[in-house]
């Protein structure tokens, strides 16, 4: 008997819903701590962008940078701990940690794939920080978000957040498999997806400042068509109940409201400590929130509605998500032509372009941009549905 049990893989003993539930609770606790870190990152990012725009003295060791880097740092440390703990539990044959709910990595390690991705994103963020420091020695101090090093950091953070969508989605699926509702994990999933879109939303400001028109198209309109259909269709198709996209958009809007006020208060606080005046003409409204869509809840309702109709009448999912994404993008394009703020709040252009020249460029780019945005949104919607499908098939 003893010989037989020694040859059986220890994980095979680890079964039972209680052990599985215990493991889920541990993973959700770790994910919640990382989510708090991601919120800290978002608060640091919005504070930093506003600080550069309104006061601006530049150095690496600032409070906004401290807050900003604490997010991925926390994500990296917690992910590393989860990978080590899960690997140890797996090799010890602890209950609740099996081949069925962990992913192998580098032959020896076993961990939920979401934490591996989040950890790698955090590591990449660290490399991006060094890249950014080096880039500053070449090209000087920060005057724009549009730099290769900043995009390295942005995409690293997106990897961290995508890892988190895997972690929460996996917990939703595991809860379903146990016959539970998985509400906590669903809410966490929507929050992370919203944060992802808010972080990119800060960078959308590039399309309202550094590069308004490129290749004859409105950069902002095209970027909106790439980002929001992807995130919201993924949310709508992944969440099994009605309103996945709407819940995500509600979180997005709440974070947008925070981004409207928080950076202004914190810049004022830091400015007073430093005894520095504002720049002449410093923006007294939030720069990071400026490019975030106002009507995202409506956008999401259109997508959720399309997906729900598709489910009810058994229509092709491809058709409904492509149609829903295209319609939502068109409505947003017409309701919120944000690029026009470039003209209404015209300032001297660092490129020497005059207001009339800019108005002319925008006018010529409007119709082609609308067409490109709608077509792109339909295609990106299909990608979003693919992402949703991948997330539904994630439980390890």
């Amino acid at each position, binding site marked *: 008997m003893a010989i037989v049990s020694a040859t059986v893989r220890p994980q095979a003993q680890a079964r039972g819903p209680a052990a599985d539930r215990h493991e889920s609770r541990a993973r959700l606790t770790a994910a919640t701590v990382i989510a708090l870190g991601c919120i800290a990152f978002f608060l640091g990012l919005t504070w930093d962008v506003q600080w550069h725009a309104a006061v601006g003295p530049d150095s690496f060791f600032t409070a906004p940078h401290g807050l900003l880097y604490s997010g991925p740092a926390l994500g990296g440390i917690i992910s590393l701990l989860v990978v080590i703990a899960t690997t140890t539990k797996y090799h010890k044959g602890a209950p609740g940690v099996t081949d069925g709910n962990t992913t192998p990595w580098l032959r020896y390690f076993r961990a939920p794939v979401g934490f591996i991705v989040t950890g790698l994103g955090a590591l990449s963020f660290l490399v991006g920080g060094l890249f950014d420091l080096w880039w500053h020695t070449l090209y000087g101090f920060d005057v724009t978000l549009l730099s290769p090093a900043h995009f390295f950091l942005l995409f690293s953070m997106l990897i961290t957040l995508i890892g988190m969508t895997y972690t929460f989605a996996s917990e939703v699926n595991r809860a379903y498999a146990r016959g539970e509702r998985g509400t906590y994990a669903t809410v966490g999933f929507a929050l992370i997806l919203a944060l992802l879109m808010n972080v990119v939303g800060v960078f959308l400001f590039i399309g309202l400042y550094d590069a308004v028109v490129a290749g004859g198209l409105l950069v902002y309109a095209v970027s909106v068509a790439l980002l929001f259909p992807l995130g919201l269709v993924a949310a709508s198709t992944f969440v099994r109940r009605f309103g996945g996209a709407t819940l995500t958009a509600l979180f997005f809007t709440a974070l947008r409201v925070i981004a409207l006020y928080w950076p202004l208060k914190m810049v004022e606080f*830091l400015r007073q400590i430093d005894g520095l005046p504002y720049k002449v003409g410093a923006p007294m409204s939030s720069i990071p929130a400026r490019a975030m869509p106002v009507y995202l809840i409506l956008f999401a309702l259109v997508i959720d509605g399309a997906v729900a109709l598709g489910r009810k009448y058994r229509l092709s999912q491809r058709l409904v998500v492509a149609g829903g994404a295209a319609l939502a993008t068109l409505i947003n394009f017409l309701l919120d032509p944000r690029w026009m703020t470039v003209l209404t709040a015209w300032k001297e252009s*660092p490129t020497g372009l005059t207001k009339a020249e800019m108005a002319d460029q925008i006018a010529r780019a409007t119709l082609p941009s609308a067409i490109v945005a709608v077509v792109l949104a339909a295609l990106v919607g299909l990608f979003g549905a693919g992402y949703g499908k991948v997330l539904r098939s994630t439980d390890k």
Partner: protein
Amino acid sequence: MRRIKALLLGLLMTLVMPSVALAHGGIPDEDKHHESIKAGPYTVVVAMADWPLKALKSNRFIVQPIDGIEGKSATLRLIPASPEVYPRTITHTLTPYPGIQNAWAYEFAGMPAAGPWRIEIEVNGAAGKGVAELAPVTVEGPPGVPLWLGWVMGLTPVYGLVWFGVREAKRVRRLQTLEAK
């Protein structure tokens, strides 16, 4: 315990004191290029944080009239020698800058293109209007690695994301094939 508290306080102070780059005063000592020129009735000192000028390298010009900025305004013009160098003249109204007293400053993303440029400063005040021109400059090419290579490097995480995306799409397709069987 006291040592830890002192350490934490020190760390906090480092984080909330970002003003190491700019002293509270006039032209910072570390500025690399200074030129004193006459703009009609006004004498101004122009300082540049980075010199020689390189295309796309961010810079800060400080313009300091020797009798202060009170009651005066100024405009900076960056004029390309020809449309081949750059198609437009860049005009910027000079404004005071946090931490720099009695001077105007222009902080910007750098000269947009390499080649010969002229830099003009117009000062308006009680004594009338005066225009000064700095010695002609030839802006060097962008510093360090070419910008395209910077972007190839900057998009590194995207390559990882694409790889992961393809791998995941294949995984789900495999699962669906298994389910179909």
